[in-house]
């Protein structure tokens, strides 16, 4: 009974899509280092789809695995589809998260949504 599922461990050890996007279409930052975890998501949008998703994460193993999983789940999805990614679906894809990590380290979906809102806000703003 290790603390994390194999899937979490796999994503933690080999996180997908780590990094920044030089000229992102949207950026979403959540958390702060005081509570423990902090994630910044960067997106590139093409034809209303997520053409690229990258992130930087400060936090525990769960936070890193969640970021990686969210980036993988979001990649290529339409924005509306991506907004359907929730902490629950992320945790399910990761074959579960420890109970105490569910809320605090599971901010990836929120950061992604924020990046999408940022993109939409800018577009509306008529940039």
């Amino acid at each position, binding site marked *: 009974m290790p603390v994390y599922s194999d899937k979490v461990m796999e994503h933690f050890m080999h996180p997908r899509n780590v990094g920044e996007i030089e000229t992102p279409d949207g950026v979403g930052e959540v958390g702060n280092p005081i509570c423990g975890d902090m*994630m910044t998501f960067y997106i590139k949008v093409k034809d209303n789809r997520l053409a690229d998703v990258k992130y930087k994460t400060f936090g525990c193993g769960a936070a890193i695995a969640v970021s990686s999983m969210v980036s993988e789940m979001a990649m290529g999805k339409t924005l509306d589809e991506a907004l359907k990614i929730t902490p629950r679906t992320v945790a399910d894809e990761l074959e579960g998260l420890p109970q105490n990590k569910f809320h605090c380290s599971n901010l990836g979906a929120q950061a992604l949504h924020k990046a999408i809102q940022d993109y939409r806000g800018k577009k509306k703003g008529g940039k």
Partner: protein
Amino acid sequence: MRKVYLDNAAATPLLPEVREAMLPYLGEVFGNPSSLHDWGDKAREAVESARIQVAQLIGANPEEIIFTGSGTESNNLAIKGLALAQPGKGKHIVVSAIEHFSVLHSVQTLGKWGFEMTLVPVDKYGVVDPQAVRKSLRKDTILVSMMHANGEVGSIEPLAEISKITKERNIPFHTDAVATAGTIPLDVSELGVDSLSLAGNQFYGPKGVGALWVRKGVRIMPFLEGGVQEGGRRAGTENVPAIVGLGKAAELARVNMPARMKQLIPLRDRLLTELPAKIDHVVVTGHLKQRLPGHASFCIEFIEGEAMLMLLNSQGVAVSSGSACTSRALKASHVLIAMGIPHALAQGSILFTLGLDNSARDIDYVLEVMPPIVDRLRQMSPLYAKFIKTGKGGK
């Protein structure tokens, strides 16, 4: 892959001699020490011999030793037992801000029965100022509790100076010596304390056993109630094999302490100097000199402890951390915060606790695998990215 265990503050391996000493008590000598027959006599004799061994480790009288089930239980018994044994004398208890939770939570629970707590602050090295203790005392102070050394940052507290003050005022003084007993020389008279907690799993003894020493004449209420074992001060059938193991571990610790310290201190000092030399933005936590022999603790900026732990584990290295994410309560270490370390930096806490199985090659290995791990996590860290871009955010 090389396996390097550097988490001896969490658990020490049992010494082979300790295990050998215990085995008969997991076999033919299975009696209950309270029983009035040969089986009971043998078990009782074993417990009483262990009592002498433990007493000798700390310069105490055997009849002042109460065997318990853990360091945690020793602290619960001490705090609750000493406070509740002084009805009518007062309700004020003074403890340091960096006590183990078994002390802090015990005092908090006493709050339900009207007791009040004053937390004495520590400096940035995690050390209590005896004058601050003096200032915190009130007319109705009935107990002072200060740990001998902190298991998270390794700093050793000036107990002998504090006890001068408590003696002047005739206030019982408890110390949690779980991190020091069996590890550094310790004499209850020199420390001037009235009670002292220790635990076997900190010095190559078994889990599931601890002891509380209480100076003769100091009143204490039992915590675990029931039978009249341990002179009526701790009920429950004695854990004979574990007590025997604790005794043997105490004897070995007493005899071999100088050699052990000589082995550990140079390894510790290499870590304390070379890790910050190899990796930027690393701070040592705790006192550099007044420090447990095998204890090297740091905060690594811009990254989080659990992630470091997991990557080190993937390289065969076992360590621990005081980060919020590694605590099951998900709270930053109260010890680091009390030392004035900012929350973000405290998240990068990492703790190497060396033991008798460690050699210089283990340190070489850690110094080799650690920098790429830090680098890898920093490359993922938005805090590090900000620091690189702005030059801000570093400590």
